[in-house]
Structure formats: C-alpha cells, structure tokens
C-alpha cells in the first residue's frame, strides 16, 4: 500500500517529477564518476598487473617499479634464490632505464630500454612482426613512438648505447639490434620511445654487467602461494630490496594518489548535497501541497507510520528512478573525461582515470540511497508532526 501510494503520489505532477529525476540523475552521474575516479587509476593498474601476470615485484629499496633509474646489485643471484623458494614458479630479472637510440647515420634520441628475457616477458604486447625469442640476443622490439622517431621498420638495425657524445653527435660504444617487431609497452607514457631486448643486453647498455644490476624482479607464484607471504620473505631475506605483492603495490600506489581521492571526495560530496537538496525540496514541496489529503488519510484511519513510510519511499523512489540516468550519463561522461585526461603525455598508455568497478557501482548506489534517505527526513518529519484537526480546519478555511 505504501509503495502504491508513493509511486502514484510521485507521478501526480509527471513533468515536475521528470525534471527532478533528471536533476538527481545528473548529480548521480557526477557521483558515479567521482567513485570511478577515486580508485580508477588503482583499478586500472590492477587490471594491467593482472594482465602482466606476476604476483610479486622486487625493486630497489625505497622505490616502486620503474619510478626511478635505480637498480640493486646481484640481481640474478637474488632472482635465482627467489626461484628456489617454495611456491615460486619462476622469477624474471628485468632491467629498465634511460639510454640513447639511433639509426645508422642519424641523430640519436633518448629512449627507454626494457631488458627482459623471453619467453617470460609480459611488459609489452606485439602489434606487428614477432616477439623476441630466447635465442634473439641481438634483436629488439620497439615502440611505435621510437619507430616513428627513427623511421624504423621491421628488419631495420637499431643502434643503442648508454652514453652519447654530443660534441661528436655519436653514440658511445653502440650495440646494434635487428628490429623484429613493433610493440606497445603497458607502462609507457603516451609519447615514450622504448625498446625491449634481453636482460643481459640491457645490462651492457646500462653498464650494469659488473654489479649485475636489476631494476625489477617479477615473481610468478603457483596458485596456492600467497603473494603477501613471499613478498614478506623477500624483504626479510634481502634487506637491500623492496618487495610488493599486487595488493601491496596497489596500496603503495594509492598512497601516491591522495590528490585524486581528495578531489573525488570533494566533488562527490557536492553532488550528494545537490541530490539531497533536490529530492528534499521536491518531496517537501509535494507534501506541503497535500497536507489536506494527508490529514484526511489520517482521519480515515491510515496509521502515522504508514504515511511517514510513504514519504520516505517517495524520496527513495525519486532516487531509484534517477539511477538509470545516473549510470548511463555517468558512464558516458567518464569516457569523455578519460579521453581528455589520458591524452596528457605523462600518462601510461594502458592507464585509465575512470574505471567502472563493482565497488564504484555499489558505493554510488549506497550513496544515492543515503541521499534519498537524508532527503526524506524533513518531509517525513512534516508528516509525522501533522495534526489532523488544525490541518483540516485550515484547508477548509483556505
């Protein structure tokens, strides 16, 4: 009965209700976008890490993967020790860092080298040509940006070195690789020029052979082993390195994204307040127009709590009706905003700011329902305090 009366009451003025629903829908869309933004980068990173497929990452002490050129020594020894640990399937040594790259006879450009041995690599996705094979010690795959900068095609030679003599315009002790494929690198910035070769080759370029320096060891586990347990073991066993399970890495990244959280908190709160004010005003206005009817409903025997529930339900129904708009518009707006933000040159290719997750959807639903409930408080109070006789009297006199 309460639902019956609430829905009928809501559609007494269809145009007004529609406008209200649209308004709440737009506020709800912004609320959804802020929920998507608050954990969007983290969720996006989680998706990439899952795609890459390693459960633990070992980095130089005090760093996150590839956030600096720092390396740690004895990399292959540590990788071998980790591989021997129970529950570890394999550990992939990786070296990344800044180098110079050129085509024969052309001016060099700065580039980023990924050294990771096939067939365990998962840092890039080949778009054209073929990936590196285990025997490909002098082969490379290059990013589209590097290929474009140097005019490289599959089969061309890539000259690379750790140092560049600007006076001579020459690479110092260059090493030469044959391009086997064009690949998109998951963690590259949009305009980043990168190429990938084997780990040992990268150590040659970065002058890390002697100390066996690595930037990262990616550790794959079997299904029964916990990433947190292995990362804790690595940290205890090798104090010179940092180790992160996927969850720990995401938490560490989240700490660096406090700005986005704050931003989404402020805008999300504003959209909630707009929701509350919109729904509250609409329902309170509707109630004040119907005081006589509500008084007569009480007079003919409808219980007070029945009418209070009806008003509450009207608030919630307004919010409920606005949800398809909130989710539809929110999704479209997020695509648009994401396209704008990810165009920035400092954003990795595969990252997204707005990611639709179950958590974002559930939080939006919960916050919208909370808004509807808060909005219903004042109109519900009006009905709870309604005095039948004076209301009927004033309605008749009016």
């Amino acid at each position, binding site marked *: 009965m309460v639902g019956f009366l609430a829905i*009928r009451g809501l559609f007494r003025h269809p145009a007004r209700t529609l406008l209200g629903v649209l308004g709440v829908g737009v506020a709800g869309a912004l609320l959804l976008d802020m929920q998507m933004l608050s954990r969007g980068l983290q969720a996006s990173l989680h998706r990439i890490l899952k795609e890459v497929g390693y459960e633990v990452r070992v980095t130089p002490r005090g760093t996150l993967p590839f956030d600096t050129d720092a390396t740690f020594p004895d990399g292959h020894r540590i990788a071998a020790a980790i591989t021997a640990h129970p529950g570890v399937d394999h550990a992939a040594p990786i070296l990344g860092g800044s180098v110079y790259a050129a085509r024969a006879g052309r001016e060099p450009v700065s580039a980023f080298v990924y050294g990771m041995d096939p067939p365990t690599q998962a840092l890039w996705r080949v778009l054209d040509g073929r990936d590196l094979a285990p025997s490909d010690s002098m082969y490379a795959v290059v990013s589209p940006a590097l290929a474009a900068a140097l005019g490289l095609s599959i089969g061309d030679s890539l000259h690379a070195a750790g140092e560049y003599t600007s006076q001579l315009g020459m690479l110092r002790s260059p090493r030469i690789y044959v391009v086997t494929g064009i690949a998109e690198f998951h963690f590259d910035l949009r305009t980043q020029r990168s190429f990938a070769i084997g780990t040992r080759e990268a150590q040659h370029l970065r002058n890390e052979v002697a100390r066996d320096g690595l930037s990262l060891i990616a550790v794959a586990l079997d299904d029964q082993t916990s990433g947190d347990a292995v990362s804790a073991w690595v940290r205890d066993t090798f104090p010179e390195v940092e180790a992160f399970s996927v969850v720990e890495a995401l938490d560490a990244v989240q700490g660096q994204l406090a700005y986005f959280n704050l931003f989404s908190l402020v805008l999300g709160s504003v959209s909630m307040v707009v929701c509350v004010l919109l729904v509250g005003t609409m329902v309170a206005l509707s109630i004040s127009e119907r005081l006589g009817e509500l008084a007569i409903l009480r007079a003919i025997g409808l219980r007070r709590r029945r009418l209070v529930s009806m008003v509450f339900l009207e608030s919630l129904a307004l919010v409920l009706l606005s949800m398809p708009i909130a989710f539809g518009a929110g999704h479209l707006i997020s695509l648009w905003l994401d396209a704008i933000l990810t165009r920035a040159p400092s954003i990795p290719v595969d990252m997204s700011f707005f990611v639709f997750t179950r958590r974002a959807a559930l939080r939006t639903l919960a916050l919208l329902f909370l808004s509807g409930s808060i909005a219903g408080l004042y109109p519900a109070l009006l009905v709870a305090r309604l005095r039948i*006789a004076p209301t009927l009297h004033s309605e008749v006199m009016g």
Partner: protein
Amino acid sequence: MSERLVSARDLAKDYQLDGFAIHALRSVTLEVHAGEFISIMGASGCGKSTLLHILGAVDVPSAGELTLFGRNAAELTDAERTALRLHHLGFVFQRFFLLPMLTAAENVMLPLMEAGLARRQREERVHEVMEYVGLAQRMRHKPGQLSGGEQQRVAIARALVNRPQLLLADEPTGELDEATGEQIAELLQRLHADGTAIVLVTHNPELAARATRQLRMRDGQIEPPMEGAP
C-alpha cells in the same frame, strides 16, 4: 434503548491563537446512539466542526469526559484512536479530499487496504459500496473526471466502506449546488434508514431538518432544545 456509541460530558476545547485564548467548546454534553441521525447547526466559528473532530477522535478535548465506543478517549493512544477511526467511524467533509491520482475505486479502497483485507474482498466491498452510492459505472474514473456531487458520493463511499457505526459529516453539501446537495441529502437519509448513525454539521436548515435530532450551537455550547422541537 439502543447502543450508546459516543458519550461526551462537559467537553471543553481551548487553544491559543495569536496570544489570545479561544474557548472553542464549553461544557458540551452529548450522547450519540446507534441508528441516530443528529444535525448540528450554528453560526461559523461556534464550535460545530471542533465538536465533530473531537467526536471523531481526530482531536482531543481540553477538559471533560469522552467515551467512544465504550472506551475512555483520554486513555487511548494515537494508534488506538487511529484504529478506532478505521473500524468504527466514517468521515465526510465539505471538501472531498479525494486523492486525484487514484481512481474512484482506489480512493474508496484505501481504508480496506489499511485494514488488511484481501484483494478479492476489497474489490467486492468497493463494488458493493460504489453501487450503494450509485457510482458503480464510474469506478475507474479519476476525481477530476467526476462532478462535485459524484466526488462527494465517492467520499461517502470511502467513509462507508469499512461499515462504520457512526458517520460524521461536516458540511457535506457546502460545495455543491442545490440539486446535487439534495442527492447527497437523500443518500444520507438512506444511510440512516439502513441503520448507520450520523452526526451532521451543516448550515443548511433543510438538510438539518432531515435529522431525527436537531441541535444548535452558539459560542461553543449546545443550546437547549426549543419547545416542540424533536
């Protein structure tokens, strides 16, 4: 003697309006028995509607004793007064107060829904009472599609649908033209003939004259009956 439905003794109702004390009722004593038809007349502001509201358990007296259907009104909780209105009382007002977004049948059905009757029972009862007020063919119409007289008949059907022992009518013809008012008067008389007790507040002497007991109020009091009056 027929069953006593309502007994009021020395009822008073005072309230404050803009800092002034208003004595809406003073020492009103009245009994309503089953099957009675009482009309109350008097000038505007003499306390007729206030008395009706107190008899109908939508307002409480400031002083005096009130027994409603064998229960001391002063001891009733809000929920008990609500239940009393639902099961024993019917209200008809000058303004019809029908819910415009519901059909006539849905408006009439509301008290039955509140009483928790099953859907089929509700539909049967609504059909029965709509037939009684002569609107069986207009059940699916919304109030905006009905004339004033038809709307008032729907309001009467809503008041009757839970088969109340006492119908309280406050100026039921006040917003109707003479001919339509006459139809409502005939309906009330038929209701009385069928055994429902009625307390009717009106300015209309012809309507009041149809009652079996006619009372007049002045300054919050019931005037003593004139000699020769019924």
